[in-house]
């Protein structure tokens, strides 16, 4: 119980730190004067001063920080600087399902891909197949996701759209699940695959290494001595041993993607998710919008981190009893 409370306290501290950091980035960075931006290029000093007063930029930074947090989390009525009256918090929550669907789809692909390639690579360690997989994984890791997305668009929307392979691909954009589940799924398959390529590369490598380490474990030797077949050995024993570290990695990456890590994919495939919203905020320099998306993203990561940590402790009773693993 004491451990739980101290974890909670640490989490709150990190959340507070992030909010201060993000606020400082947007409003206290030297040279970034939001009132000059809102007033527009070449505005007279009086106009800038009036804007500064109207938006409250002339008040002390801590006061502005507190008002901002109040608007974001308590009264939840932070409005955009660009589209006046547009509620930023609502916008973020409207975009969240799009990102969630995209990332969930991608997670399915990347877990499946990583399992297949990781197991194949580990089972035939050192073979030609293993080498091929490791090279492919490295290539996947090295690809900029936005470039891959453009290539996918080029192939599936234009060059080979008329062939049987890509005839089913709908035009770019997003169809909500409630409108038409089939087009929802169709529209998300290619973006999710694009997003998952780098993760398949990363996770198959991690899984392969972990599996090979697990194979050296005493429990595996015992299982082999007791006559467990190769299937049982790999799936029931090795995978269970090595799955834990991959799981904690997975939770972190999943949260990062939900929180806006999928920005580039969303932009390239014109999916109106949280990342795309951030991108819109960027092009119009809408500070409240960017601040809201970045903060929600960071909070996602911290909370997911804590959840994964708890899950990890539940699944692996060896840690958390005593020393904190240092």
């Amino acid at each position: 119980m004491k451990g739980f409370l101290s974890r909670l306290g640490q989490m709150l501290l990190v959340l507070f730190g992030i909010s201060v950091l993000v606020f400082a980035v947007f409003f206290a960075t030297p040279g970034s004067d939001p009132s000059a931006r809102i007033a527009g290029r070449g505005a007279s000093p009086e106009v800038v001063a009036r804007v500064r007063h109207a938006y409250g930029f002339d008040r002390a930074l801590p006061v502005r920080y507190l008002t901002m947090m109040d608007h974001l989390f308590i009264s939840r009525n932070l409005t955009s600087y660009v589209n006046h009256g547009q509620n930023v918090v609502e916008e973020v929550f409207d975009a969240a399902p799009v990102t969630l669907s995209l990332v969930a789809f991608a997670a399915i692909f990347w877990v499946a891909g990583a399992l297949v390639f990781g197991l194949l690579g580990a089972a035939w360690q050192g073979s030609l197949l293993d080498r091929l997989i490791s090279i492919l994984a490295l290539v996947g890791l090295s690809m900029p996701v936005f470039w891959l997305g453009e290539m996918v668009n080029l192939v599936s929307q234009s060059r080979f759209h008329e062939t049987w392979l890509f005839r089913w691909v709908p035009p770019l954009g997003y169809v909500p699940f409630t409108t038409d589940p089939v087009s929802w799924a169709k529209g998300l398959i290619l973006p999710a695959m694009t997003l998952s390529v780098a993760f398949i590369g990363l996770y198959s490598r991690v899984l392969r290494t972990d599996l090979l380490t697990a194979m050296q474990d005493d429990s595996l030797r015992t299982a082999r001595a007791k006559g467990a077949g190769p299937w049982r050995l790999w799936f029931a024993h090795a995978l269970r041993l090595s799955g834990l570290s991959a799981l904690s990695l997975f939770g972190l990456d999943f949260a990062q993607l939900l929180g806006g890590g999928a920005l580039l994919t969303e932009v390239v495939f014109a999916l109106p998710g949280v990342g795309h919203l951030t991108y819109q905020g960027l092009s119009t320099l809408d500070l409240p919008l960017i601040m809201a998306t970045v903060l929600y993203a960071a909070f996602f990561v911290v909370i997911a981190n804590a959840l994964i940590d708890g899950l990890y402790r539940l699944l692996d009773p060896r840690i958390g009893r005593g020393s904190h693993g240092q």
Partner: protein
Amino acid sequence: MPERRVRAMSVSALWEFLLRRRSALCAACILCLLIMAALAAPLYAHVIGVDPMESNLAGSVMRNGTMQDVMQANDNPLHLGLSPIGPSWRWGAYALGADSQGRDVAARLLYGGRSSLLIAISAACLSLIAATSCGLIAGYCGGWVDLLISRLLDILWAVPVYLFAISLSVVTIGHDLSLGPFHLSADSLLLPIVIIALIYVPYAARPIRARTKSLSNAGFVLAARGLGASSWRIVLREILPLLAETVLVLAPLIMALCLLAESALSFLSLGVQAPAASWGSLIHDGEGLIYSRPVVAIAPGLAIIVTVLCLNALGDAAQAELRAKGQR
């Protein structure tokens, strides 16, 4: 002590490593070629006779014995709209075609490589220097200093890297910046370098801190302390040389990450500012032409992949080497 330091840092050890690992040698050669090509960009532009920064919409170029316009009418029935000239297999101007401003894509690719590689290398160095200082101080001092630095790094770590970089770029890039005596012009490359370096500090600082922590309890450090060496001496002359390995192994991986981050920022027009080019901004330029002249976007993407692939291969080999050394 001295011979250990020499072994960790020497050039001949690096050579031996490259010769032992063929993939590392291959990757290092390709990287050298890429850097040389990027350095030769002005030479190429001069020999070919094109200006990679100036738009050239009215220009024409000799191809297949005839003069052809750089911007050509589309071959639809009404000849509406213009497309830039496509690639050709012959050596000469516009070998990779032109972009929407009529500029030579091949020359811009080389110039883009200059800024991309420059940013990636300097950002990686800066990031590693900052991470080494943080990790060294946190790991050696322990106590509340360690707690403070670790918490700060945790906070940085929890903000998604690209979002953090994007936020910093939005508020700083695109207008002149004055920081006391320093003045940065809007198109300075220093800003993307510092921003990208900053976001990857926690990535490298964590392993460095862990290594410092284990080293500062090692026998030779205790011996040095017992002999009355000062903390400065212990940190700089006993621990730092042994950290060099950890840092060197991280270097290619961090550089790969920096290159990818730079290309993403430039793709969002938040990195290198026009008319200057980087591989990311070239992909952004090619986005509008993707269906008619895909090579404009394909070429810089391939350049990024090859570079990052080589860096990752180099990092992998170095890591394997370190592991093998640990087992020996």
